[in-house]
């Protein structure tokens, strides 16, 4: 499976986790996700995700004026966002361990 397909399901989580560490603007988030190893991530997917999380109340935003060039729109995680991340993280761990267990059991059986 293309890793970009896998990414779609967990992008919310990845973005929330990134912003929990430190507030950031759009491309900043993209860069940090790429630095973390998610090379296939699309710029627009990240921006769209930010917008959706913002609309859902998981993120807050504020504009930081820039002296040279356009203003930057920074995002930060709200309490609701932190709760969302915790629940998703628990789901992910349970899901990941199940799949890992399944895969290793199948490998051992071979």
């Amino acid at each position, binding site marked *: 499976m293309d890793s970009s397909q896998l990414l779609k399901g967990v*992008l919310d989580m990845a973005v929330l986790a990134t912003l929990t560490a430190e507030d950031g*603007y*759009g*491309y900043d988030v*993209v*860069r940090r996700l790429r630095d973390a190893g998610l090379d296939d991530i*699309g*710029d*627009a*997917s*990240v*921006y*769209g*995700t930010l*917008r*959706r999380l*913002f*609309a859902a109340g998981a993120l807050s935003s504020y*504009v930081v004026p*820039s002296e040279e*060039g*356009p*203003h*930057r*729109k920074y995002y930060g995680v709200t309490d609701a966002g932190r709760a969302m991340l915790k629940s998703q993280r628990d789901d992910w761990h349970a899901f990941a361990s199940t799949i890992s267990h399944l895969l290793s059991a199948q490998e051992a059986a071979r």
Partner: protein
Amino acid sequence: MSTSTEATIRLDVASFVDEVRRHLADLSAEEREELTGGLEADLTERLEESRAAGDLHSVLGDPRRYAEELRAAAGLGSSTTSRRSRLSTTTERLRGWSSASGWPQNTIAWDFLVPLRPVWWVLRAWIAVQALDYWFGDWRHDWIPSFGGHLIGVVLLLVAIVVSVQIGRGEWWPETRSTGLPWYLLAAANVLAVVMLPVVLSDLPTSRDVRLASWWGAPVHPPTPQGVQLNGDPVRNIYAYDAEGRPLVGVQLYDQDGTPLAVASRTRWQARNYLVTYPWGLSEVSDGLMNVYPLPTREQPRRGLDTDAFTEADPPMVPAPPFVQVPAVAELPAEALEVFYAVTGTEPSAEPSEDEPDDTGPDKPRRDDTEEQDRSNRDRRTNQRDDPSDRDREQGSEGKRPDRTTSDRDGRGTGEPGD
């Protein structure tokens, strides 16, 4: 990084973001701003970092795809929105104009037309191939362009339709940026197609009927003209002459089925007046008969028939005949007319009578249509008796009825034993 490079980047980013916004035109302004607010700053940084200044498209790809991805990730990608986002720049711009015009009807009409775009894609392909056929093909032009052969026109048409539809779907044409050459080329081609449409259509009817006939097995008839025709032209009046070549007045004409041979009652514009053809026997209660010849005409300032016309100062007049006298014709042998006389009861006699058949003639039952004819004769005579001038005119003319004239002539000429 030099300032000139920065300026280039800024310009490039601005045009890219503009285009992304255009592909999100169906969203509300608020949604669009939320999606693309700060995008310039992000993209500028992105470009500076990737050092691929000058062409954002090569770094981020197609703005349309970019917009789709943005929309999908933001959870705004419904089927209608994605379909509308696929509309070309031209379509979006036209829609913008129609909504900016302030007339809601324009927007409604436009929204109605948008789903019909595929019809135009096929039509313009057809126009293009027709135009090619017009310039390069033979003189025959048809609904399916021929190019002188049978198959090549069909193949070209199908290829053209595929190309046109693909271009319409935004597949086989460079992204139609508003400032780009491709957009202008496509717009010019569309305008040319619109201009060519009447040209192509006007050239078709020359062979259309023939071809349709060969396709459907039946000729396509033009609308049936009204009234008596001669070689396709309407007959306006008829002058009858008897066998000896003398002009007749009051001749009633019917075809073999008993249908009145009437000329179409028509009004012609002539010298600031209308030339109106009047029927015989026109009155307030009767429309008169248009199959009695010759028909009187009158120039009058009004269209249509005037029931009082014959009592007015300038009554309708029968125009002068084309010939005062025409050559006499050789008579038919008596046997040729036997059936005719037997049925009509107008046996040749020295003193023929119109209504009562001669005692010498066989008194056979008449056909219905003959009786009808007689009845209309009687009606007309009644009308004419009301008007002394008409009767005078009629009595002054030679051979009032064709059958009597013929009987007269027969009586004199053949001298049958029965007489």
